[in-house]
Every structure is written in structure tokens, then in C-alpha cells.
């Protein structure tokens, strides 16, 4: 066995190739936009980018966890809305921000556990199960404040606590960068560590690659499924906090379509929607690519229709490439055997 250089070993980590490609793509796209409108390179724009990217990053991480297990979580967007409405309604009702955050977190996790049960225990197809919870969560979001968006979160608890909440989750900066980004990065590192270094993480990859083999090797498929859905629900709840802090109120439609953006971020970063592979590092790049595209197209004045088309094309291409490379690998394996 020849001694490989550290760089080569780095490249051979499964999924690293895809992640690196996503990062390279990100840099190319960013530079291209910046050359057309120099303001894209401005400090303020970079700060904005990092902040708005955070929500896609978190949703992407959550959705990636579920995708790696071979499932999908369609309820993420509605969970974001439910979280934004709940935390805002609680604060408008006079509950202090910390308690509101905790209560909302618990409710979100309950939905995550529900998803885990439906898919892991009752074996419902994940698409159907989470489609159902998607409608239920959105319905809860509507009903939490009687079918209306909430008032300003500071109306009962006062401007002080409300400002603190908004500064913490959206408007405040630490070390010159918006808090939103730091929160997303901290959670990202936590979940990255969980996925790549712990046994639970390995189980998550295992049931995505080959659930029968995983079961036979003693992996608790049910618990692993639940864990993935709980992680995704936590991510969605935190993004709900971002949106609530951004607007200073709860919006019933918050988070609309976010589950799809999560899929896109993961897929562009090399997480296979078929399960079993992908690095969260790639999701980071995927979320960054997505946000840079959105931000860049906006900054150069492109019509919104174009934004949608471009993003759709890139997502399809990313999946296509993934499928092509997978079938290429299979053929290689068959030839070797």
C-alpha cells in the first residue's frame, strides 16, 4: 500500500468530491456576479449574504440528515411557519422570550418525533407522511393566532425583551458578523460532528445506504429515523426564530417552500436524494450557492422568473451528475468483480 499524501486522503473522504465541486461552483458564481455589479463584493452585501444564507444552511442541514437516511421531510417549511407563529404569539401574549423559545422548541420536536414514528414505525412512505404533517403544521401555524398574523412581539413584553430577541436572532452583530450566521454555524458544527464522528451518525448513513443490511447489523432503524426527523425539526424551529426576529412578528405564511430549498441545498452540495451519501460540508456550499444566486440575481436586477429557472436548472444538473456518477461507479464495481 503506497503512502498517500494528506491531500489525496482528504479528497477520498466519501462525498468530499461533490462538496469541493460545490464550493468551486460557489466561488465562480460569486465572482461572476461581482464582476457585473461591483456592489456584490461590498462588505455590507457579504454580511447580508451570510445572514440570509443562514436559514437555507440550517434547513439544508435538517433536510440533509433526513435525505441521508433515504427519506424526505416535506414538513420543514410548515414547521418554520409554525415555529415563527408560535414563538411570536407567545411573546405577544406576554410570555418572556426564553420561555417562548423553549415551548416552541418542544412543540417542533414533537412534530419531528411524530414524523419519525410515521415513517420509522408505521412504515408510511416518507413523502406521504411528511406531506400530512406539512398540512397539519401549516394549519397549526394559521390557528395559533386565530387565522391572523401576530402583532408586534413587543406589544406586551415591552420593547426591551423584544429588541433583545430581534437583536439576538437577526439584527445584532458579533465580531462584525450578524448573529444569525453564528447561530447557524454553531449548529452546523454541532450537527456535522454528530453526523460524521458519532455512532448515531454512522447509523444514519447506514440505513440510507442499505436498510436491510443495517438492520441485520443491529442498527435500530426506528430510533435512527426518529433522530433524523428530530434534528430536522430542530433546524426548522430555529429558522422560524430567525424569521420571527427579522419581521418582529409572526407571519402565517413564513417558511413557505423552505423544505424544497433544503432539498436543493443538500443536492447541490452532493447529498444524494437516494440516501446513504453526502457531507454536510456540501450542504453548506449548496446553501451558499443558492443564496449567492438569489442575492446576485437580485443585485443585478434580473427578473424573478429567471431566478427560479436558473436555480431549477442547477438543481436538476446536480442530481443528474450524481446519478450518472453513481451508475458509473456501479459499472466499475461490476467490471472489477
Amino acid at each position, binding site marked *: 500500500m503506497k503512502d498517500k499524501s494528506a491531500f489525496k486522503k482528504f479528497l477520498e473522504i466519501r462525498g468530499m468530491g461533490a462538496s469541493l465541486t460545490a464550493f468551486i461552483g460557489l466561488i465562480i458564481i460569486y465572482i461572476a456576479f461581482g464582476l457585473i455589479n461591483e456592489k456584490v463584493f461590498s462588505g455590507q452585501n457579504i454580511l447580508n449574504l451570510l445572514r440570509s444564507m443562514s436559514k437555507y444552511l440550517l434547513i439544508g442541514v435538517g433536510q440533509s440528515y433526513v435525505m441521508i437516511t433515504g427519506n424526505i421531510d416535506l414538513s420543514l417549511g410548515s414547521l418554520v411557519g409554525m415555529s415563527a407563529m408560535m414563538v411570536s404569539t407567545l411573546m405577544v401574549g406576554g410570555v418572556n422570550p426564553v420561555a417562548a423559545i423553549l415551548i416552541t422548541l418542544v412543540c417542533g420536536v414533537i412534530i419531528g418525533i411524530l414524523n419519525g414514528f410515521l415513517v420509522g414505525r408505521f412504515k408510511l412512505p416518507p413523502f406521504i407522511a411528511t406531506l400530512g404533517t406539512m398540512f397539519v403544521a401549516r394549519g397549526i401555524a394559521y390557528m395559533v393566532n386565530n387565522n391572523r398574523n401576530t402583532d408586534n412581539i413587543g406589544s406586551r413584553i415591552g420593547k426591551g425583551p423584544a429588541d433583545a430577541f430581534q437583536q439576538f436572532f437577526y439584527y445584532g452583530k458579533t465580531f462584525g458578523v450578524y448573529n444569525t450566521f453564528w447561530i447557524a454555524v454553531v449548529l452546523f458544527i454541532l450537527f456535522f460532528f454528530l453526523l460524521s464522528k458519532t455512532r448515531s451518525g454512522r447509523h444514519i448513513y447506514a440505513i440510507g445506504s442499505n436498510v436491510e443490511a443495517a438492520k441485520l447489523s443491529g442498527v435500530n432503524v426506528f430510533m435512527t429515523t426518529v433522530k433524523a426527523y428530530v434534528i430536522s425539526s430542530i433546524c426548522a424551529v430555529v429558522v422560524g426564530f430567525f424569521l420571527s426576529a427579522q419581521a418582529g412578528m409572526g407571519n402565517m405564511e413564513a417558511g413557505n417552500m423552505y423544505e424544497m430549498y433544503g432539498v436543493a441545498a443538500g443536492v447541490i452540495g452532493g447529498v444524494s436524494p437516494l440516501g446513504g451519501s453526502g457531507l454536510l460540508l456540501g450542504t453548506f456550499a449548496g446553501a451558499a450557492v443558492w443564496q449567492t444566486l438569489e442575492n446576485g440575481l437580485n443585485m443585478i436586477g434580473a427578473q424573478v422568473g429567471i431566478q427560479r429557472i436558473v436555480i431549477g436548472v442547477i438543481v436538476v444538473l446536480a442530481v443528474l451528475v450524481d446519478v*450518472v456518477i453513481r451508475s458509473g461507479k456501479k459499472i466499475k464495481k461490476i467490471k472489477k468483480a
Partner: protein
Amino acid sequence: MKRKIVAMISCLALLTAAFTGCSNGSKGTAQTAANSTASEESAGSKEETKASGNIKIALITMDQIDQHWVKMNHGAQEEAKKKNVKVDFISPDTKDDSKQIECVNNAVANGYKAIMVAANGPDAISSALKDAKSAGVKIVYVDSPANVEAEATFSTNNAAAGKKAGEEMLKALKAKGTTKGNIGVVNVNAATQSCVDREKGFRSAFEGSEFKILDTQYCDGDASKAQSIAENYITQGVVGIFGAQEGSTTGTGNAVKASKNSGVIGVGFDSSDSIKDLINDGYLLCTMAQKPEIMGAKGVDACVDAINGKDLGGKVTDTGVTVLNKDNVDSAK
């Protein structure tokens, strides 16, 4: 790995082709050819942007698709040409607080000197607008103000306009000899202040009469949803229906059309080609047409004045509504 790099680069070529072909605004992008080598052309386009009028105004409305905003942009663009300033229409694709806030943030980062904004709601974008003000950007409200002090506001007095709509319906009902019955209201949602005000105004016109106005139903601006709601109202036997905004009005008119001779009187708000057709064909009695073009034009004037240092004192101007009915609908723009 190689295949992925190729895929990425071809995406990029596609991307460059897509946005250079279709972006609006005179940023010299017409020069930028459909290649991924944007670097050579960019030098030329940068210079052009700086030269074409150094006042840049951003128009941020609730979405890019409603005819109301499209007309407002049109009015603003016409005025911009006259005053030799640049107005960029950078609204989100759908009505979404988070996206609107991002647009405001992007406008500030992009160096716009003034923002004309139609806020989705009075509160949501307030913090973002405050940040914009501290960055020295002038704010002018068009159509819907937010809770942050601005240079000026140009909007429709929605309560008064709603009342007018109610009065028109009352007149028509009296002329038919109907003095009591149920009236349905279709609105967009319970959160958009402008529409809520219109409804209040409409209801106030019926105070003291024997008509009962049913609980409002919401269509989220979707004309087909509005049509289903209106059709239900007609089945329940209402004598009149009020549509409080464009989608609601279109749906109401279509429902009356589908019901064939139900005798229901439809009154609406906002104007569009479909609404004008419905009035012409007699399915809608009239609609309160706002003047988005005037809001756009006056907004641009106010921005220019504010940028040049004039103190407008936050004046609120009612741009008014025109009652569009069968007699004058053809001559309307």
C-alpha cells in the same frame, strides 16, 4: 470529479446566458454576450451604470406580478425619464415579508439613494427600514406605509374608498327596489391593513340599513379561490358581493358571470383588464380604481426632492380612486 466540474461550468454558462439576456435595467448588460467570460465586458458596463444619472431609486412593492404594482412601476418609470433619474423595480416574486426585508437590505447594500416602498404590513419591515434610514437612504411610502417615519406617503384613503364602494352598491340596490338581504365580502387576508380598511369603510356605508353583511371570507389574492367563495355566497342567496382587492374582485365578477342571471350586484376594488371586461359585460357594477401610476410618479418626485435636501415633512397625500363603471370603463387607462 471531472464530470462534475464540467457540469458546473456548463451551469454557469447557462446562468450567464439567462440573466444577461433577460435582466431589466440599463446596466449595460446588453453588451455582455452569452459567454462565461463576463470579466471583459464588465469594465464597460460598470462605467455605463455610473454615467446614466447618478440618482438611483429602488421601487419595492409587495410583489412583481399584480397589475397594480406593474402600473405603479410604469408611472414611476415615466416620471423617472422626465426627471432623468433611474428607478429599479426590485420587488419579491410573491408577497412575503422575509423576501421584502431582503429586498430592502439589498437596496441599501446596492447603494440606492432612495427607496419607494409599499410595505406588506406596517410592522414587519420596520426594523429593516430603520437600518436603511441610518444608512442615509430616503424613504417614501407608496400605497401602504409602515411604522417608520418617512419623507412622504402617497396612498389611497382606503376607508373612504371602501365607503364609496358601499355607497355605490346601496344606490344600485335601492334602484332595484331591494332594501334588505345579505351581502358577502371577499378579501385577501386579515393582515393587509389597506384591504382591512377598505372593508371597514364598506361596512360603514351600510350602517343603519336593513342589509346584513356576512362574515368576510379570505382568498389570499387568488382569483379562483375568490370565485369559489363568491359562488358559495350566490348559492346562499346574497344580494350583493364586495371584492376588496384585485383577485377578490376578479373572482367575484367571474362567479356572477357563471351564475347567469342571479341578479347579484358585484362591486370591486382595483382595476385590471379582466375586471374592465367584467364591468363592460355587466357582471360587475363598478370598481374603485386606485391610481397606482400617480402614486409611482409622485413617489419618484418626492424621492428626488428628498435626495436634493427638501424637507417634505412626512406629508400623507390621498391619491384617490375613480369609480369605474360601464359608462367610463372604456376611456380609463
